[in-house]
């Protein structure tokens, strides 16, 4: 039996299985948080009277003085920004440039949705609410794509015995 030459075909190395698992968990967590945020935002939009805050009210005021559901919505939005940055960092550590690019778009969408949410709470423009929903959709698409593109390399190869 001769040793197989390793000099012909060379492919980019896959990240370690642990790193891939962490990346998949982070992507799934962001995806789930976005779905919860979407439901919470829909509830707030339909059933909660957003206080007519002063023009230019920031996020701290919304969190401190708003209704409970609106406060939850705002806090979850902040956590989503953190989760999006965490996913971006993990993708960079795994050296998966494609996932980094998608995670960056997802982060921009989450941040944009957060800006739109603050704008909607302080000014009440319907366009801000629409922007929030559309950007949430973009972020969901990004994190769904991330989960789809991640290689399933977390299991060690099994030997078959005959």
């Amino acid at each position, binding site marked *: *039996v*001769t*040793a*197989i030459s*390793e*000099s012909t*075909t*060379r*492919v*980019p*190395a*896959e990240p*370690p299985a642990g790193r891939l698992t962490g990346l998949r968990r982070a992507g799934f967590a962001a995806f789930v948080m976005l779905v919860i945020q979407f439901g919470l935002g829909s509830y707030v939009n339909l059933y909660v009277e957003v206080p007519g805050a002063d023009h*230019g*009210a*920031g*996020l701290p005021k919304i969190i401190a003085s708003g209704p409970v559901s609106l406060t939850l919505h705002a806090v979850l939005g902040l956590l989503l*920004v*953190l989760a999006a*940055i*965490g996913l*971006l*960092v993990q*993708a*960079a*550590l*795994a*050296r*998966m*440039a494609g*996932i*980094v*690019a998608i995670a*960056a778009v997802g*982060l*921009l969408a989450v*941040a944009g949705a*957060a*800006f739109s949410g*603050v*704008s909607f709470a*302080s000014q009440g423009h319907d366009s801000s609410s629409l922007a929030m929903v559309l950007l949430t959709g973009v972020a969901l698409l990004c994190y769904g794509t991330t989960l789809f593109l991640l290689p399933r390399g977390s299991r060690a*190869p099994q*030997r078959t*015995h*005959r």
Partner: protein
Amino acid sequence: MTDHPAPASRRPALPRWFGILLLAEAATFGVASYLHRDGHIALGFTTVTGEHFRGAALPEAIIGAVLAVAGAVVLAVPGRARAVAATATGFAILGVIVGLTVVLGSTRFGVADVGYHAGILAVLLGSMYLLGTAGRDIRPPSRAPRRDDHSAMPTGG
């Protein structure tokens, strides 16, 4: 005990230019912090005049310091600096997003503030992308069976 070169090849060193990039980003935060402490920068043809905004000066100084430390770590120990660089860049991205929230939520700030925040956010995201590509190692396909290891193969059959 035998020393295997595999761990070294799995953790390729970050290029030095990435450390310089981090230091350059840190410098912009330092300049922004200085300008927010009533600083003035004479450029010859004009003078950039800052303002007193302590609420922005301190966070900008902290972000700049974190990026500067990360840049120094990349230059000093490039083989072990990837996590430090990624964490520092993520921290800076978070800070810029918070700053952008403040800038966009108030009529006090002008185009220059929005432009700087948008620009540095793009640079930081680009840095993160470069971090995902810089120093990528190329290894042979791992699915190829190792036929030279006779002791590991089943003897029966």
